[in-house]
C-alpha cells in the first residue's frame, strides 16, 4: 500500500483512457468505490492498470453510516462488496460520509442525507463505523457533510459530533472544505470556529470542490454540486486549513458536468500554489524566529 501525498484528482470514466495513454502528472487519484464493484468490468480493468502508476484513495458513498438500523442485509452485502473491491485495489485511504442513505424498510436514497446531531445518532453512527471497520479490517475516514437544513432537535455541534466519533471509533477525518463553506452559509455557523474545533491529528485527507447557488423562496442556498470550479471563498478557507492541519493529501473533486482533464489539472495547480505559499510563509517565519 503506497502513501499518498500532494494534490490528487477524482478519476472519472471519461478520463480513464487519458490516464492509460498519457499518465498525466498527478500525485494520486480518488475513485468512487461503488463504480468498480465488478472486478472484471471494463472500467475496473482500466483502473487496475492505472493503479500501477498512481496511489489510489477509495471514496465510498453507500455505507450509510448514519442509518438507524445498525444491521441490515443490503448494507452488509454492500460492505462485503467494498471489502472485495479494496482487496484487489489496495487503496491507500478509504473513506465514506457522515450521512445516511438507507431506511429500515430497505429503501435506498442515492444521496448523502443529513443526520441530526443527537446522542442517539452518535451511538448509532459509532456502532456502524465500528462495524464497518471490523468488517473491512482498517480505519475509515469520515467526511464532514454538506447540509441545506438544520434539524430542530440537534443539540450537538457538528465538530463535537465528529470529535466524539473519533474518540469512540478511532476513525479519521476527511475534511471537505467545500462542505464546511456550503454548510456554514446555509446554516449560519462560522467556518473558522468549525476548523478550530476539529482535532488536528485526526484529519488525513482534504476535499476541494465547487458548489452551485440556488435561489429558493428568495434565499440563496449553496448546493454541494461538484460541478463547478472551486470558488475563491473555498480557496481562502483551504489556505486556513493548510495553516492549521499542515500539508495533507488534497483532492480536486468534480462529479457532475465533468470537464476536460486540463480543467482539473489547472485546479490542481492552484491547490499546489496555495500549499507552496503557506509552506514558504511558514519557512520565512521559522527562519526569522531562528535568527
Amino acid at each position, binding site marked *: 500500500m503506497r502513501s499518498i501525498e500532494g494534490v490528487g484528482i477524482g478519476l472519472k470514466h471519461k478520463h480513464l483512457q487519458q490516464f492509460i495513454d498519457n499518465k498525466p502528472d498527478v500525485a494520486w487519484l480518488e475513485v468512487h468505490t461503488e463504480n468498480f*464493484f465488478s472486478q472484471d468490468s*471494463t472500467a475496473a480493468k482500466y483502473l487496475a492498470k492505472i493503479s500501477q502508476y498512481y496511489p489510489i484513495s477509495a471514496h465510498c458513498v453507500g455505507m450509510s453510516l448514519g442509518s438507524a438500523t445498525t444491521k441490515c442485509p443490503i448494507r452488509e452485502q454492500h460492505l462485503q462488496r467494498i471489502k472485495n473491491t479494496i482487496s484487489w485495489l489496495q487503496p491507500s485511504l478509504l473513506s465514506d460520509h457522515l450521512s*445516511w442513505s438507507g*431506511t429500515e424498510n430497505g429503501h435506498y436514497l*442515492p444521496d448523502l442525507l443529513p443526520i441530526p446531531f443527537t446522542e442517539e445518532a452518535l451511538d448509532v453512527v459509532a456502532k456502524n463505523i465500528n462495524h464497518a471497520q471490523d468488517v473491512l479490517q482498517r480505519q475509515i475516514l469520515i467526511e464532514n457533510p454538506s447540509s441545506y*437544513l438544520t434539524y430542530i432537535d440537534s443539540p450537538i455541534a457538528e465538530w463535537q459530533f465528529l470529535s466524539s466519533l473519533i474518540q469512540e471509533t478511532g476513525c479519521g477525518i476527511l475534511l471537505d472544505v467545500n462542505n464546511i463553506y456550503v454548510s456554514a452559509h446555509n446554516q449560519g455557523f462560522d467556518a473558522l470556529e468549525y476548523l478550530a474545533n476539529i482535532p488536528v491529528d485526526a484529519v488525513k485527507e482534504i476535499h476541494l470542490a465547487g458548489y452551485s447557488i440556488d435561489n429558493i423562496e428568495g434565499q440563496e442556498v449553496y448546493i454541494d454540486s461538484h460541478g463547478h470550479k472551486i470558488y475563491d471563498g473555498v480557496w481562502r478557507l483551504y489556505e486556513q486549513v493548510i495553516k492549521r492541519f499542515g500539508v495533507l493529501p488534497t483532492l480536486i473533486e468534480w462529479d457532475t458536468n465533468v470537464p476536460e482533464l486540463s480543467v482539473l489539472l489547472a485546479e490542481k495547480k492552484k491547490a499546489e500554489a496555495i500549499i507552496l505559499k503557506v509552506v514558504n510563509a511558514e519557512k520565512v517565519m521559522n527562519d526569522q524566529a531562528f535568527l
Partner: protein
Amino acid sequence: MTKLAELQANFFKDCLSGTLTADNTTMSKDIDSHLISAQGLMGIYQHSALANITTSLSLTFPVVEKLVGDDFFAQVCRQYILAHWPISANMDDYGDSLPQFLAELEQVKQLVYLKDVAKLEWLFHQSSLAKDSKYFDWATLAGVAPTDTLKLNFILAPSVALIKSTQPINKIWQMNQDNAPQNIELSIDGETDTFIVLFKRGLKTEMMTITASEFFLLQSLFNGLNFEQTIEAVMASTATMGADTSIDNILKKHMELGVICGFSI
C-alpha cells in the same frame, strides 16, 4: 421504531411524495424553517436524489435518452423512480424493469423499437460488468470420446447475452453511438427478425448480429440443454440449415469468439 428511524422514514416519505406542499411535508415538524419552508428544504433533497438516480439511468441507457430527448427522459425517469425506488446502493443493479416500463408508456407507443433498444442497453450494461471467462480448452475437447460427444454440455461465457427483436435495434444502437458511420440504412417494418449476441472480448463488450440458427443454438445452450438436445431444438426452430450454418460451424465460430467458453459431460 426509534426516534432516528422514524425521522429517516419520514425523510424518505417526503422524497417519494412527488410535489411537496405545506400540508404533505412530513418533516415540517423536525426542521428549522424560519428562512425557507420545510417543503422548500425537502425539495432540495428530493430533487438531488431524483437527479442522482436519473444520471445513473442515463449512463445505462444513453441511446434511449438520445431517442426520446433529455427532457422527456428525465420526466420518464422521475415516473419510473417513484414507482420503482432503488433498494441498493449499487446503482449497477438498478434499471432492469425500465424497458417494460417504457413499453407501457402511452407517449412513446409509436416508438415500437424503444423497449427492445432499452433491453439491449440493459443487457450490454450487464455484460460489461460480468466476470471474465477462460479461453476454450480445445485440447481437452479433442480428447472426448466420440460416444460422449452428444452428452456434452457447452457453457456460455458469463458475459453472454442474447436478444431477438422484430426491429433493427442493432442499427438503431449503432446510429446513436459517438462517431457512428453515416451510411447505415434503416427500415423499420417489423417484418425482419434481428438476432444479437453480446459478449466481452478483451476490455470491451461486443455486439454481433447472428443468424436464427446461431441464436437458437446459443439459446439452447443458455437454457442448459446438452449437445444432443441442442441439435434437436435448433432443428425444430429453424426451417433451413444451409451448409454455411451447420451446427459444427456455429459451434466452432462461437468457441473461437469466446462466446462458448467451456464444456462439461
